[in-house]
Every structure is written in C-alpha cells, then in structure tokens.
C-alpha cells in the first residue's frame, strides 16, 4: 500500500528518484444497492476524481444492461468503460443465439467469469449488479475485481464502503444489535437509507460527494432520481 502510494500517488507522496508506470488509476466512486421483494434500488455517487482533482461532478456510474438488470461500477474508469462495452457485446451475442435477453442470474455469472478470465491482469473495478430475477424478486450481487461473486439483499462498494456497509448491516441486516428484527424492505425505506448513507459518507470521506443517482428497477420498468450531495 505504501509502495503503491509512493509510485502512483499524488506528487508530494511520490519518490522522485524512481519512475514507474502503473496501468491503473483510481477514479473513485461509491455504489450501494438494496433489494426488496419486488424491486431493487441501485445508486452511485456522481463524482469522478483522481487524487485531489475532480474530473466530473455528474458522472453516472450505473449502467443499464437489460430491462431488468443494472450494474454499478467504480474504480479505474478506463476499466469500467471497457468492461461495460465488452459486457454489452456479450449481451447482444447471447440474445442473438438464444432469441431472448439474458436473465439477471445469467448476467451475474457471466460477469464473474469475465472478471476471472483476467485474473492475472485484472479489471480494477468494483462491481455491484442489481436486478429482478426470474421469480420477480429483487436481487443484488457483489463482486471483487477478480470475479468473486456473492448474492445478497444489500451491499455497498467503492471508496466509502467502510463507512456505508456497516450502516447497512446494522439498519437492514439488524446486525450488531440485540433484540432488533430487521425491517421489511420497502422502496421508501430503501431510498431513505441510500440517501442518508451517502450523505453521511460524503461528510467523512473526501472522495465521495457532488451527487447521487438512484435507479429503481421493478418488473414494470425503471425510474431514476438525482440527489445532490456536498461538493467539497
């Protein structure tokens, strides 16, 4: 970690005696997804940055894949874009062969395989996949950069994961508390949690801020909502 910072961090932290090319850049970003019985909500902050520089305050990091599936990606933005492009091509190829669009579970598995294929030069991307499965239930998949995949009902990823994940564990999972039952998930509760989680993260984490876009998927379609965050 220290070595990485020395080589590819901001110039005041770089060792001036050495030149090292790093193929990766960290462009920041945080994502959250929460699943309900018949919906799923996925949100990302809209700040694209590198070190102390902000590239954009309005970068949507959630990519639609099918009418029932969306993916939030953060990390190295070049890898995010390429991963998304390759995935889109694979989705089209699948639909040509199968005469049907990919199901959420199929996309989830495909993404895992694609990421592991690059095990020895990974996509530097933190992914969350959110969608409606074949039974109409909301589902969330969390990934690491090399394709480890976990099916969950809620998840956070990215720069502010350390701030947001414990909050979700506690509020949705009822974890680390005694005698408290987790609530039934509704769209309003999910939206409020996502909103509050990001606002809190923006206070403490310098990399998170500017705004969030919250996407909701149900069997009837998709909606989106933009929320402002502090811009410092």
């Amino acid at each position, binding site marked *: 970690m220290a070595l990485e910072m020395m080589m590819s961090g901001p110039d005041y932290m770089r060792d001036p005696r050495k030149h090292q090319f790093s193929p990766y850049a960290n462009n920041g970003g945080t994502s959250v997804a929460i699943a309900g019985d018949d919906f799923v909500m996925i949100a990302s902050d809209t700040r694209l940055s590198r070190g102390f520089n902000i590239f954009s305050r309005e970068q949507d990091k959630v990519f639609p894949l099918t009418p029932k599936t969306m993916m939030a990606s953060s990390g190295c933005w070049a890898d995010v874009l390429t991963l998304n*492009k*390759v995935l*889109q*091509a694979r989705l*089209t*190829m699948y639909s*040509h062969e199968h005469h049907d669009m990919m199901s959420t579970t199929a996309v989830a598995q495909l993404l895992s395989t694609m990421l592991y294929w690059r095990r020895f030069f990974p996509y530097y991307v933190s992914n969350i996949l959110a969608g409606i499965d074949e039974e109409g239930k909301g589902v969330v998949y969390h990934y690491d950069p090399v394709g480890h995949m976990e099916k969950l009902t809620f998840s956070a990823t990215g720069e502010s994961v350390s701030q947001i994940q414990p909050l979700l564990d506690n509020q949705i999972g009822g974890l680390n508390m005694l005698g408290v039952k987790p609530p039934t998930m509704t769209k309003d509760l999910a939206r409020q949690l996502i909103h509050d989680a990001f606002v809190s993260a923006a206070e403490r984490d310098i990399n998170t801020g500017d705004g969030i876009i919250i996407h909701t998927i149900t069997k009837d379609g998709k909606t989106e909502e933009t929320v402002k965050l502090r811009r410092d």
Partner: protein
Amino acid sequence: RHQNITGVVDGSQLLVMFRNQYDNDVTVWSPQGRLHQVEYAMEAVKQGSATVGVKSSSHAVLVALKRASSELAAHQKKIMPIDKHIAVSISGLTADARVLSRFMRTECLNEQFAHNQALSLNKLMERVGAKMQIATQRYDKRPYGVGLLLAGFDEDGPHIYQTCPSANYYDCQAMAIGARSQSARTYLERHLDEFRSSTREELIRHALRALRDTLPNDVELTNKNCSIAIVGKGEDLSIYDDDDVNPYLEGLDQEERRGGAGGARDAQPPAAPTAAAEEDDAASAPPPPPTDEQPQGDSMETD
C-alpha cells in the same frame, strides 16, 4: 462429386443449362466469359421460398414466406436479426445464410465496441460482398448458395439491399427473391411510386400483398407461414412471428389478388376485372400442387 445435370428448369422462365466442361470449378471461365458454378449457385436462391423487401421514406420492411419441410416440422425461420437496426431475410441454403449472418453480427458488434456507433448499411454490404467474392475466386471454396434481402435504418435513412451468390449487392427501393418471386416483383414494379410516401402500416401491407402474389391461388398467408420485420425512424428492429403477425394480416385474404391497379383496400372492385379474374381461376382449376415440396432423396435443405 457433383451430379450429372443435363438440364435445370426454373419455374417462371424456361432456362435450360447444359453440363459442359467449364462448370466443374469456380475458377474456370467458360468461353462465353461465364462462371457456371456461380450461376448454378444462383439457382439455389431460386429454390428457396419467397421473401419481399420494401422501403418508404421512413421505414424498411421485410416479409418472408416460411416453409415447413413436412407436416411434423416447424416452419423454418427466414428472418434473422443482425443488430438493433438491421434484419436479413434469406433464400437458399439456410446453413450458408447463418454463416453470413454470424459474420454480419460480429461486424456490427465490433463497430459498436470500437467506434460507439451503429454500422451503416453501405459499409456492411461492402464487407459482405468482399467476403462472398472470395468464394468465387478460390479453387478450394464454393460460392455461398444463398440470396439475402437486408433491411436497415442508418444515418442515411432506410435501406433495402439484395445480395447474390455472385457477390454482387444491389441497393433497392423494393425487391423480391426466391421461388415464384417474379409475381411479387411485378406487384412491386406496379406500385413503386406509392412506397415512398406510405405509412408504416401501408408499407407492411404492400409487402404482404406482393408476397401473397407468389402463392398458388388456394394458399393464403397465415400467422404460421409468414414473418414480418420492420425498422425505421425512431423505431428499433421488430420481428413479428405467429400471433404478432395477426394484426397485419387482418383482412388481407379478402382483398383481390393479382389485380386491382390501385392495389389498395378495394372493397368493391369494378365488375369487369372481377369477371375476368373468375374466368381465369376457373380455367386454371384444379390449381397445380404447391411446388415448394422438397424433392425426394438427397438434397440440400433450401428454405
């Protein structure tokens, strides 16, 4: 080793080709400057069932007659999606058509991946033409035995393209290929001036009427044997099969066939042509059996 063909008869025009010493290899010219293997490949297109393409100023439409090889089998699909803005209808060797379709699909995917744009039809046709031409100039290959009708919509508007095993491709306002397609082409020629300003529904109707003209009198277009594809301004490709075809076929069998100069929904056609049509039908009864039966024995599956 290919068969001893002493003569081949094509339905609408009596064309008799004789086996000669210049038709074994596609790399051999005849003294008349012809490549017989390529011409034989074009015969395969004529064996496939009919398909019609037509465009207006805003849309491009394909309709196709699906053939079932027996009562037990499903009707073979004729229209294949290539991308969100392109569809292709095939006539001839289905397997060859699939190879070309796969090629076209990967070309479209690559354009989207590398250039973030939809592949325009003229560029696609150049590439398909180049690929097909290779098979007409190598001793170890054979021409593609399939004709394609492409319908697409790109930045230059709607397009209909036709390809041949000869690797030629043609930009068309309207076209029909396959068995008995001359009747369809006659309809299209007659109504050519109406297409540009046709609405979406009128355009599909024209295509269906042209397709219907290729059928024997006792056979009708049904939702089982008919496919429709449409793409156009503000509209991604849609392909209709089975029940989705019903709204477009409605009332079509009531319309008069191979007549009606206006070609529109003539509810009351003038008395004289009707009488003439009836006479005509009576004279040709009983109608000849549908010639889309597959010949017995080994033959390549053409659809």
